[in-house]
């Protein structure tokens, strides 16, 4: 089984002070000097892919952690899973790609874009679809649900559409069943389905409660990964013409800051009864009371 997980690092938005989003003139997805991090959904996709096929009996750097992540795998010798981490990004991503090699990815590939593609989902999807249909095509493509900073949510479904592959959403867990077929758990708030499927296939992750944190490489693994190279391709290396990579269908720009702050309206009154009355009349409308 060959799989590839696509990711795009983002700024650690939680570290950007609120006033820095009030940009003068031009709003940008690059809000200043904060660190890059894995997008949490993609971190979960990356770990899910590492956990796949790593039964407790298997060897390799990931085996000990696999005990925690998947108890439903088939018994017997593990299936060989070849994992690629793939991103369309500038060289800031190389640190992350090497980290992924350290935790067990067999291959790290970066396609260097010629411009910022945060708001060009079809160009990104066409780039990925072109890479996928290259010389060594994977059986399984795994995506996070959001995309990078642009959060257009389109990359996974678009790649599926371009390749003519089926696409499963809200994927929460992956495993091989007893017959060594791929078992995909799709989970939403209050529903859960388990599909046994035949690749090729696109998977888009959702809330993965068990594999939402990427395992941590040891100092030794990090040292070893330093000597392994990240494969860097330029857009010119790929022939995108097979897919409609034109994002001429739409254009997106950042235009402002959403109004979302809660402001507290105080209820005044002379007695608790009065205050309760206002609360009931104004905020607990009769039709809302069950």
């Amino acid at each position, binding site marked *: 089984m060959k799989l590839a997980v696509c990711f795009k690092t983002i700024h*650690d938005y939680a*570290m950007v002070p609120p006033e820095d989003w009030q940009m003068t003139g031009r709003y940008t997805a690059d809000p200043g*000097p904060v660190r890059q*991090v894995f997008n949490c959904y993609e971190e979960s996709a990356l770990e899910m892919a590492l956990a796949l096929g790593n039964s407790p009996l298997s060897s390799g750097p990931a085996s000990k952690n696999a005990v*925690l992540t998947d108890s439903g795998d088939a018994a017997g010798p593990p299936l060989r899973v070849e994992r690629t981490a793939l991103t369309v990004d500038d060289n800031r991503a190389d640190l992350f790609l090497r980290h992924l090699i350290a935790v067990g990815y067999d291959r790290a590939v970066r396609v260097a874009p010629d411009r910022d593609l945060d708001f060009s989902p079809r160009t990104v999807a066409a780039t990925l679809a072109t890479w996928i249909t290259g010389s060594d095509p994977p059986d399984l493509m795994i995506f996070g649900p959001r995309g990078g900073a642009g959060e257009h949510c389109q990359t996974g479904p678009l790649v599926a559409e371009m390749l003519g592959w089926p696409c499963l959403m809200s994927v929460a867990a992956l495993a091989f069943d007893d017959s060594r077929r791929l078992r995909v758990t799709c989970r939403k708030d209050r529903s859960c389905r388990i599909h046994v499927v035949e690749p090729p296939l696109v998977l888009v992750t959702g809330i993965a409660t068990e594999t*939402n*944190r990427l*395992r941590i490489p040891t*100092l030794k693994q990090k040292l070893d990964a330093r000597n392994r190279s990240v494969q860097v391709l330029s857009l010119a290396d790929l022939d995108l013409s097979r897919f409609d990579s034109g994002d001429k269908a739409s254009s997106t720009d950042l235009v402002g800051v959403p109004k979302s702050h809660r402001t507290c309206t105080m209820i005044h009154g002379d007695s608790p009864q009065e205050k309760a009355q206002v609360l009931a009349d104004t905020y607990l409308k009769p039709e809302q009371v069950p």
Partner: protein
Amino acid sequence: MLSRQAIADQLSDLVGRDRVITDEQVLRENSIDRYRKVQSVFGRYELPLPAAVVKPADARQVSAILKFASRHGINCVPKTGGSATEGGLETVVENSIVLDGSDMNRIIEINPVSMMATAQCGVNLEVLENKVRRQGLTIGHSPQSKPLAMMGGLVATRSIGQFSTLYGGIEDMVVGLEAVFPNGEITRIKNVPRRACGPDIRHVIIGNEGALCFITEVTVKLYRYYPENNRFLAYAMPDMKSGFEMLREIITAGYRPSIARLYDAEDGAQHGFDQFAPDRCVLMFMAEGPAPLARATAQGIEEIAGRYTGWNPIDSKRIENWFNHLNWGPEKVAEERELIRKTLNTGFTTEVSGNWDIIHSIYENTLNRIKTDFPHVDDLTLLGGHSSHSYQTGTNMYFVYDYNINACSPDRELETYHVPLNAMVVEETLKAGGSMVHHHGIGKYRTPWTRQEHGSAYYILESLKQVFDPCRIMNKGTIFTVDP
């Protein structure tokens, strides 16, 4: 000896049933602190459960409880915010009482004229700090545990904050305080700016870690708050040696930045410093105070840095954004628990101090010792450290070590990883002539070295215990070993 039930019943008679908790899960969580975070994540509680958690309403109730405990020889573990990391809150003997001061949470007075705030032991530092900030003031105390820690515990553990290089540790901030001793004596040390009336008896109480008395009330100094004048400066240094040198030069020249931190490359990488300073050490400062002073401090630092070569400048905004998210609130505690559960990776720290002439040896010797002697070195995922509190005579070193729990089950994590790593840091530091504990407190896991740490002065420490806690009911196993 009283039974668990009898202890709970008699405590209820003293303070009322609502103030005595015997719910089993609550007792479990009160048998440990964050030293056993891995075990608590997996629901393994191996220590004796306390007989009860009691939450006194005031100093009189504390007094009554301590008298009762003295009479019956019951071990009492004082507690407030519960953010301890060194086992200080562990109940290591059967049928202990956890004396939880978190209900004593009244801010008694904020005095903007004499620049003092008085709060009960259960007042959360962040709550108090936010309150004084609304008056344009600050306590100047900002440990990472600020969102969790409470005034009593902060003083009891001799805590220190991230702005210590300017404001000092908690011992420099306490004006006066109230504490209750095991015989029930309620003592108030009055608030005066300075006096020469015998030894400074505040220091019997500050840092006693609940092994001598229970702190009920604290008065701390207040300073003017000028956040608008804060100026960050940061440098990527080639190595720790040159980092310590430049740090020393700036501090000993007479500058008092509030933040002065030096990270090695490994520790920096966990904060994402490798994204802008790969394989480099990061030295950072914050100048603060009234505008002319902040400006002069920043200028002085820049001038001294200019005399050195080999460093690269770092966008100070990057450091500022990072620093503003350094605190350990409950969110981070919860996140860490999740990480431990999911990845079986955990990490601890051991903080020591040394004079300028030995600090780099402590740093190097300790890392080399671990790399050579620690049998599970291949499981380490992080080994490094930083200095974060500097003084005229030296600085601290905060060793950081993370590991995948790989060689044992989570139950045996302590003895397999944490205990030996902690021991190596302590031993190398003492060997070089430093101090084995900089600001977390001795707790229960560095007690084997308490005598060695104090040398001939241990006599003074042991005498304090004998005089103030003759029945040895106060926090058994903390500072002093269980069997003296």
